[in-house]
């Protein structure tokens, strides 16, 4: 990191090359420009949404059910609860499974074996399958098929099925990013631990995984950020768009992106504003979720 740069080497370099300094400056400026553009787009997007939707943000909005008859009293309660439940269930699924798979691939799998290589390519491929296909998969296998989760729902679309479908969708992200995080832990750490008599598993649990929490957290953040806004798979799995009661894990459910999509395709302009307000709620939820993970990431970050 720039901060750890030693002061002496810096002075040496500066004295030696004036021309390099200009190139350094240009390079630095172009990088800053990239950051600026990204933040600019984010700003404009947010302002756009806030202008349209801020008018409807209120505690009432978050605790009331949607209304078609009186749109100005419409709320997102059922959809919001649905999304919350989905995220929690999804997280509970992807974190252990994703990290476990990443650990296996990085630490235990022999990369020369063909089946391990197949798994690797597999996972990377799954990251580019469009979300719609996961919806088809979820419908065929989880809602209707052999994996009809513990006989709940009896072929009906349930919240749990939706959560699992989303989980399968974002699992590759968690695995790929966690793998990189685990890979970044220097071998010397592992070797030291083994030399002191720890088993492989102990080394992993006490040294390697704690050292890669920061990267794993990034993976989970990106994964849940993706999952929270996904519409297509939920539509295909059978989520409702309009629901006047609270969802249960084994029952019908709705979710924020679906309600947003529903509103956006409406004819009356007021629904566009409701959609914008719902998007703001979703973003706030996302921020809360991310903050938790980011806090953890910052606390447990290790520098080698």
């Amino acid at each position, binding site marked *: 990191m720039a901060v750890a740069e030693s002061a002496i080497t810096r002075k040496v370099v500066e004295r030696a090359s004036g021309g390099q300094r200009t190139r350094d400056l240009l390079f630095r400026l172009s990088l800053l420009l990239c950051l600026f553009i990204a933040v600019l787009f984010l700003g404009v997007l947010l302002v756009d949404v806030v202008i349209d939707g801020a008018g409807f943000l209120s*505690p009432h909005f*978050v*605790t*009331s*059910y*949607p*209304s*078609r*008859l*009186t749109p100005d*009293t419409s*709320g997102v*309660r059922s959809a*919001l*609860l649905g999304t*919350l439940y989905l*995220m*929690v269930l999804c*997280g509970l699924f992807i*974190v252990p499974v994703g990290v476990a798979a990443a650990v296996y691939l990085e630490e235990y799998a022999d990369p020369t074996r063909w089946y391990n290589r197949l798994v690797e390519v597999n996972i990377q491929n799954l990251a580019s399958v469009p979300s719609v296909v996961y919806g088809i998969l979820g419908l065929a296998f989880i*809602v*209707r098929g052999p994996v009809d989760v513990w006989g709940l729902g009896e*072929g*009906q*679309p349930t919240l749990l099925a939706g959560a699992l479908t989303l989980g399968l969708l974002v699992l590759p992200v968690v695995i790929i990013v966690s793998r990189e995080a685990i890979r970044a832990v220097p071998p010397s750490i592992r070797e030291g631990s083994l030399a002191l008599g720890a088993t492989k598993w102990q080394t992993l*649990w*006490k040294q390697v*995984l*704690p050292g890669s*929490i920061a990267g794993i*957290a990034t993976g989970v953040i990106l994964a849940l950020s993706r999952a929270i806004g996904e519409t297509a798979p939920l*539509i*295909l799995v*059978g*989520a*409702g*768009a*309009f*629901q*006047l*009661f609270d969802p249960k894990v084994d*029952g*019908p459910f*709705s979710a924020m992106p679906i309600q947003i999509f*529903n509103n*956006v*395709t*409406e*004819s*009356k*302009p007021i629904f566009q504003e409701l959609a914008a307000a719902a998007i703001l709620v979703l973003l706030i*939820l996302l921020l*809360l*979720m991310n903050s*938790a*993970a980011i*806090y*953890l990431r910052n606390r*447990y970050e290790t520098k080698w």
Partner: protein
Amino acid sequence: MKLQRFVAALAGCSALAFGVAACGDNNTDSGSSSASTNAADNQNLSGTIRIDGSSTVQPIAEAAAELFNGEAPNVKITVGGAGTGDGFKRFCRGETTISDASRAIEPDELAACKKASIEPVQVQVGIDGLSVVANKDLAIPNDCITTAQLKKLLAPKSKVANYKELGEGFPDQKVSFFTPGTESGTYDYFTEAVLETDAEQRTKDVQTSADDNQIITGIEGTTGALGYVGFSFADQQKDKLKILQVDGGDGCVAPAVETIADGTYKPLSRPLFMYPSTKTVAKPEVKGYVAYILDNNKEIVEAADYVPLTDELLTQAKADLDAAKPVETAAK
């Protein structure tokens, strides 16, 4: 253990979020509803109704669910809008209670239902119209277009490249069309009603979209654009575009609730259906719900921005519901 604390912290945060969202009051507002003769009975109804299918009919199902909820709070209704085709697929597997449809059920769908021993019952719940719209700057004479001219413009092999080819008075403007896509029921209806071919429309110079709002944006932003969308969409955005009158052979008629309902705005109106099955309609809560839609048809359908059934059609629909006769042969 760092890892354990990580997991615990994550769980804690989600529990907190849960708690915050779980508090809150119910939205008990249900508007005024005309007293149904079964109001008292409806109170005791309970059960779950899953509705899916056409996103066109979805608003009607939603408005009805909301009103019905006031009378029968123990009936849990979920409404989705996965599309007519998908809706039937689910319905014919027994996964939904009622299927919304913006067209009649087709033979292969009926066959699939029969295979699963599910017998759909057709009940018409409303009427939708198609509005022909144009960019504000497109100067169509009298703002009226005949079906013959529409056919000439949009027929499958049409080579019309400029509006002036339609005849006197038409502007010298290159054509540009925005219509629903081939996967939409609206498209099917237009091609059958106006083009009188079987589901074919020209592809040159035509941009399609599944979303009526998008079509309107397209037409609004392109000089010389022309297209068609659902009546309610055009009605909502009438300040952004020009809504054309349509001459179906009996003079120019503008699309409006009255003209669509009484059939003078032809040929661009289509029926909207709900299909319970013989099994589901036997359940009191399901029959209660559909009956409610018919008893309060005007209020519900207008709240959804569509055209309510005429008296004739309403009587027919109520009879269909009571008889609960399954569909024997499908149209087409």
